């Protein structure tokens, strides 16, 4: 019997209108787990490097994590993967809520979608009944409203729906997929729209079997209690002091710092706005935290936000929180990523100010910042006028506009909008994470090792004394000896980067939420999940033996396979550059040395390509064969044949 997983995938071909239920091999689970790990393997096997993201041959994969629908709490992130037209690399996207567990109860671990429907359709999955249905009546309908309408139409309030809004329908690069007030960001809504797939509605009533049920249930209850009583989860859902983002992050088109912005008076005003309009805080499947603030702003659709998501619009527009509350509900119904979209709009307004775009490009646009943001957002989601260019994201729009616009594209890496952080001195671990990460946003890479040192040796000692999450004693030593943020050797920075990344790769394959795991450790170290207890969860749930070393290796295997997918699509060292103004003080030579040292540490050649030896150690010999066959790796010494 298969435990924790169903052992079946749904293969959907929207061009042919065909639906197949296909068994997945067990050894694939052991090698790549579920979620993003399994999806990476499928993308490697089935999407050839020459495939255009908008080709019907590109796949869109929804995958449940290996621990979804087990009693382990805080497991609910569904992975969505495809090839992104924005980066031309593998898109990494996750959304919380209830979708993955429901999919498993319906009897499937993944939905693998290829082809393109002739017109808008939705997929209805109810256990063994799977249908591709007409969705033309949902054209232009908001993403959450689509979910609501489908529940009514299907006469089943228990259906879980993931849907795109107008942005996805119009193939806007910043389009998200929305589900139950959670969004799958970073460039997957555009491919769902391109495939003419408006929504997926899933309902499942089947059992999920657990290999060691009583033990896992017991362990889960302890973890449930730990998550509830410890500070993990999104503390920003309760903490009204948001001086951190406002004083430290850049405003507008990621340029302006307002270092003394935050004040008591402002905090009081914003706190009233929040509590006067907040219906409640909600959580994801089987998680005791309540990280999402549900807001109803007068005259606007109800929405929910987490974390820094409430700041991006008003900071890009130089306004206050009420503006974010006003626009977020509308943006969510359009299905727009709230991290990249505000940057695209602020970029357009900067081009207007610089005279690269002119008033003629914005006919009838209001004078005030509020009105302008709404105006440009409408143009983007409809791809009207200048909106058609801006809908391709900052980097692509800059190239299309030309005339010096490229200089205003200053906050992207690998053509993807980065968080608007502008700092003084380079923190070497952060340099490596931003430069070499393939999850496109630092929030998806950082997390286990603290962001900053603690001031006194006593405090550092107290920190490591209760630091259960550290996978190796060496990290405790590094932390004990760490005094200044930028003072880390290249070797230590490489090891920290590797650990931080590994935890995210584990979360994204198991379905764990980063707020109780990978992302959360950096803020205080007290986190529910880590390399030391996740192996037990996997072992008890699946019955497959797992320990720390095996899990670590699995994380490295998935991470390296993602790198191989991207290398095969052209990613090289030259692309691994954080935004030039991310830090004020730069030293190109030292940074390039750091990068080379990291590649050496990872067993990649100096063009950022994993060597045969490295690949074989991770049981990825078939990847080495392929890269050699294509002339990307040289046969004898694993050195890149085609240097950039």
């Amino acid at each position, binding site marked *: 019997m298969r435990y924790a997983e169903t052992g079946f995938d749904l293969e959907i071909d929207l061009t042919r209108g065909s639906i197949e239920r296909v068994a997945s091999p067990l050894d694939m689970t052991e090698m790549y787990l579920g979620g993003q790990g399994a999806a990476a393997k499928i993308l490697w096997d089935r999407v050839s490097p020459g495939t255009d993201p908008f080709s019907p041959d590109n796949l869109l994969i929804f995958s449940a994590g290996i621990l979804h*629908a087990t*009693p382990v709490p805080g497991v609910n992130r569904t992975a969505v993967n495809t090839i992104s037209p924005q980066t031309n690399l593998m898109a990494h996207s996750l959304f919380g809520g*209830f979708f993955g567990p429901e999919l498993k*109860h319906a009897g499937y671990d993944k939905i693998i979608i290829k082809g393109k429907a002739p017109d808008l359709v939705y997929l209805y999955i109810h256990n063994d009944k799977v249908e591709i249905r007409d969705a033309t009546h949902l054209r232009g309908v908001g993403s959450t409203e689509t979910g*609501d309408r489908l529940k009514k139409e299907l006469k*089943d309030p228990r259906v879980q729906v993931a849907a795109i809004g107008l942005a996805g329908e119009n193939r806007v690069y910043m389009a998200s997929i929305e589900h139950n007030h959670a969004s799958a960001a970073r460039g997957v809504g555009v491919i769902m729209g391109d495939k003419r797939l408006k929504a997926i509605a899933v309902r499942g009533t089947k059992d999920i079997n*657990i290999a060691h*049920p*009583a033990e896992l249930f017991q362990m889960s209850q302890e973890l449930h209690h730990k998550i509830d009583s410890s500070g993990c989860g999104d503390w920003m859902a309760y903490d009204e002091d948001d001086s951190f983002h406002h004083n430290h992050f850049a405003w507008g088109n990621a340029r302006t710092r307002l270092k003394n912005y935050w004040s008591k008076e402002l905090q009081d005003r914003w706190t009233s706005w929040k509590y006067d309009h907040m219906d409640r805080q909600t959580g994801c*499947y089987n998680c005791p935290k309540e990280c999402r603030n549900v807001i109803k702003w007068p005259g606007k659709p109800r929405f929910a936000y987490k974390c820094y998501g409430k700041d991006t619009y008003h900071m890009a527009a130089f306004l206050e929180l009420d503006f974010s509350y006003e626009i977020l509900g509308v943006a969510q119904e359009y299905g727009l990523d709230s991290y990249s979209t505000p940057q695209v709009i602020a970029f357009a307004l900067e081009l207007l100010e610089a005279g690269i775009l002119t008033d003629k490009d914005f006919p009838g646009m209001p004078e005030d910042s509020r009105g302008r943001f709404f105006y440009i957002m409408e143009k983007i989601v409809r791809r009207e006028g200048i909106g058609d260019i801006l809908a391709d994201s900052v980097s692509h729009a800059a190239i299309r506009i030309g005339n010096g616009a490229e200089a205003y594209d200053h906050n992207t890496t690998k053509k993807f909008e980065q968080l608007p952080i502008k700092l003084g001195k380079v923190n070497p671990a952060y340099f490596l994470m931003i430069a070499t990460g393939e999850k496109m946003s630092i929030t998806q890479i950082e997390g286990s090792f603290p962001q900053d040192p603690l001031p006194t040796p006593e405090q550092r000692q107290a920190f490591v004394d209760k630091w259960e999450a550290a996978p190796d004693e060496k990290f405790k030593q590094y932390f004990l000896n760490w005094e200044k943020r930028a003072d880390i050797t290249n070797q230590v920075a490489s090891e920290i980067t590797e650990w931080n990344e590994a935890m995210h790769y584990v979360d994204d394959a198991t379905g764990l939420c980063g707020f109780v795991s990978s992302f959360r450790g950096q803020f205080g170290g007290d986190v529910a999940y880590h390399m030391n207890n996740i192996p037990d969860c996997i072992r008890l749930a699946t019955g497959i033996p797992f320990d720390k070393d095996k899990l670590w290796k699995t994380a490295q295997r998935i991470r390296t396979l993602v790198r191989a997918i991207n290398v095969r699509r052209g990613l090289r060292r030259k692309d691994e550059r954080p935004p030039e103004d991310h830090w004020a003080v730069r030293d190109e030579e030292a940074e390039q040395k750091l990068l080379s040292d990291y590649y050496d540490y990872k067993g990649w050649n100096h063009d950022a390509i994993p060597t045969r030896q490295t690949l074989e150690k991770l049981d990825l010999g078939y990847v080495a064969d392929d890269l050699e066959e294509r002339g990307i790796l040289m046969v004898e010494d694993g050195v890149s044949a085609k240097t950039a």
Partner: protein
Amino acid sequence: MKARQATKIIKEIKVDINKCTGCRACEMACSAFHSKPKYSSINPARSRIRVVVDELNDEYVPIRAGDYTVAECTGRHTYAIDGKDYSECSFCGAVCPSRDFFFEPDSGLPLKCDMCETVPALDQPWCVKVCTADSLTYVEREVPRDEKPQPTRDQLEIGLEFLINEYGMEAILENLNRKSKR
């Protein structure tokens, strides 16, 4: 002195719908506890508690499975609470044909909350234990037991006559005979 009145314990789960986060940990735990062997599988569809969520209207209502009824009720009230309209069904635990809640997914048999009765007894039902948001809280109340009125002679005679008509004198006598020998 008056004899002490007999009492019984009423077990109650109180629901605060404003506190529910919609996490469905209650469904998960209930289904695990009621699987056979205990905790061996997870399936909210087998849970005796379900959380009805309407995120557009901000409605989050946990309901427990009550008695099975063959027919759905003829009319429904609509309750306006804090400016939101709830159908009576939102609060009703009846296992009725108007919706497919609280039916065993395989057999179609109705499910009913048993307050997690087990030996040895749990300190609290599972759904309450995992509801860290305190939307569900458990209370035990001691209430006087109603004294059953003794049947009158008339009632006895009417009952007997019915049985004789239904089954015949012979069968009744034979049955009584057997019982009196036990």
